[in-house]
C-alpha cells in the first residue's frame, strides 16, 4: 500500500518538558521504508523526539504529519521499542503476554484474544527467535532475550513507523544481528524505522539516512553527506577528536 506523501513529516516542531525546550524548530521528512539513524550526544533530544512521535509529549509548536495527516490520527501506526532500563522486569507478565499487548489496539480493549491475534503473536516470536520463551516470566530473560521480546511486540503491532531507543547498546552479537536483520525485513514491508544510537559505525553502514541532533537539527540526509567534520563538530563539540590522518573519533557517551 503505497502513499504518495512522505511517511513522516516534521514541520518546525519544538518539544520540551515543562518550561524547558529540549528540541527546537525541527523540520525534516522521511520517505516510506527508510531506515533513519538518530544520532547526537547524550541529552541532545533523541528520546524527546521519540516521546513526541509516540504522543507522550505534546508539541509546543509546529506539526508532525504521518501519511499527510496530523499525528494521532492513526493510532496503530507507530510502535516503540523502549530502552531496557525503562521496563519493570518484575511485573508479573510472561513473554507471550508482552507480545499480545501489541495486539490490544487491533483486537479491541474488551474481550479475549482471537485466533488471528494468537497467530500474530506466535509469528512475531518466531521471527525474533524467542518462540520457545513464550510462557516464561519476563524476569527470567537475559538482556538479549529481553530486547527480542520487545522487538517481537513491535512486530505484532504491524506498525508503519518503528522507533527504537538504543537497541545496539549492551546486547550480545546475535541480538544485534537479529535487530539489524529485522530492519531489513521491515524495509521490505515498507516500514519506516528510526533508531536512536550511539554507534556511529552502525549508523553509517546500515542506515539510509542520518538525523544528527543537538537540541536542534544539525543535519539530515544520507550518512555520506551528514558525516562531515563541520556537522560532527556542531553536534558533538567537545566529545570529538580529530586524528592526524583525518579520521574523526567521537566519544558519544
Amino acid at each position, binding site marked *: 500500500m503505497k502513499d504518495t506523501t512522505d511517511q513522516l513529516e516534521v514541520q518546525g516542531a519544538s518539544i520540551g518538558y515543562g518550561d524547558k525546550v529540549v528540541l527546537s524548530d525541527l523540520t525534516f521528512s522521511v520517505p516510506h521504508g527508510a531506515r533513519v539513524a538518530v544520532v547526537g550526544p547524550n541529552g541532545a533530544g533523541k528520546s524527546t523526539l521519540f516521546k513526541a512521535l509516540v504522543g*507522550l509529549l505534546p508539541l509546543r509548536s509546529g506539526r508532525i504529519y504521518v501519511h499527510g495527516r496530523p499525528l494521532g490520527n492513526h493510532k*496503530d501506526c507507530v510502535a516503540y521499542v*523502549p530502552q531496557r532500563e*525503562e521496563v519493570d522486569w518484575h511485573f508479573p507478565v510472561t513473554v507471550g503476554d508482552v507480545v499480545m*499487548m501489541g495486539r*490490544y*489496539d487491533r483486537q479491541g480493549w474488551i474481550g479475549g484474544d482471537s485466533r488471528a491475534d494468537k497467530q500474530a503473536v506466535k509469528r512475531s516470536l518466531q521471527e525474533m527467535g524467542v518462540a520457545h520463551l513464550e510462557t516464561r516470566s519476563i524476569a527470567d530473560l537475559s538482556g538479549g532475550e529481553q530486547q527480542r521480546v520487545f522487538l517481537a511486540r513491535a512486530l505484532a503491532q504491524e506498525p508503519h513507523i518503528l522507533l527504537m531507543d538504543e537497541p545496539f547498546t549492551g546486547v550480545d552479537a546475535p541480538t544485534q544481528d537479529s535487530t539489524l536483520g529485522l530492519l531489513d525485513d521491515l524495509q521490505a514491508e515498507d516500514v519506516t524505522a528510526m533508531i536512536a544510537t550511539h554507534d556511529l559505525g552502525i549508523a553509517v553502514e546500515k542506515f539510509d539516512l542520518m538525523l544528527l541532533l543537538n537540541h536542534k537539527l544539525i543535519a539530515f540526509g544520507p550518512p555520506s553527506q551528514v558525516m562531515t567534520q563541520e556537522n560532527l563538530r556542531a553536534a558533538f563539540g567537545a566529545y570529538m577528536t580529530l586524528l592526524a590522518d583525518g579520521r574523526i573519533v567521537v566519544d558519544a557517551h
Partner: protein
Amino acid sequence: MDLLLEPLQYAFMTRAFAASVIVGVLCAVMGTYVVLRGMAFLGDAMAHAILPGVAIAYLLQGNLLIGALVAALVVALGIGVFARQGQIKEDTAIGILFAAALSLGVALISSMKSYAVDLGHILFGDVLGVSVGDLWLTAGLGVLVLVTVALLYKPFLVISFDPVLAATMRLPGDLLRMLMLVLLALTVVVSLQTVGVGLAAAMLVTPAATAYLLTRRLLPMMLVAAGLGALSAIVGLYVSYYANIVSGAAIVLTATAFFLVAWLLNPKQGVLRRRPRGLV
C-alpha cells in the same frame, strides 16, 4: 464441625462473614494494582482521609458510608489533579492531603462529645455491626468495582506495565489513572466497616503481595490474592469469635501469617528455599 457452624447461627455473624469476604476479595483485587504500581502509601492515605467525611456524615446524621465515599472521592480526585499539574510530586501531594484530611477528621470528632465509642469502630472496624442495608451497599459497590476491573483489564494492564505503549495506542492514560484512584477509593470505603481506616491498607497490600510471590502472571495473581483475601477474612473472623479479639485485627493478622508462609516457602526466592543445596 460444630465449632465452624456455631457462629453462623447468629444473623449478625452471617452478615459479618459475607461483608468480610466481599471486602477481602475486593481489597485483594485492587491491591494487585496497589502493589504493582507502588501505591501502598496512597491506599493508606486514602483510608485515613475518609475520616472527615465520616465525621461530617455523623454530624449531619447521614449514612456514614456515604460520607466516607464522598471524602474518599474528593481526596482521590484531589491527588490526581495536584499531581497532574507536575509542580509537586505525587507522594508529596498525597502526604499533604492525607495529613490535612486526617487532621480535619480529628478536629471534627474532637468537637463532638459522645463519639469515643464509634471512633474505635471507624479506626478498627465494626464488622459485627453490619446491618442488612450496609451489606447491600457493600455488595453493590463491590460488584461495581469488580465489573469495572474485569472490563478494563487490558487498559489497566497496559497503563501499569508500559505507559509508553499506552500512549502509542492513544489510551486516555490520565483518565484511566483517575478511574483507578476512584475504584481504590470505593474499595477503601467498603473496607471501612470490616477492618477500619487503620487496617484497610493492610488488606490492600498483604494478600496481593502474597500472591505476587506465588504467581507469575497478572490474572492468576489477582485470583490468588482474592482467594487469600477471602480466606483471611473467614479464618480471621473465626479467630476473632473464639479468641474474642477485634475482628479487623484478627483478619489482618491472618493475612500476614499467609504472607509469612509464602515469603519463607515461595518457589521464586523463598528464604527457606535459598539455602545452599548442600545443606538441604
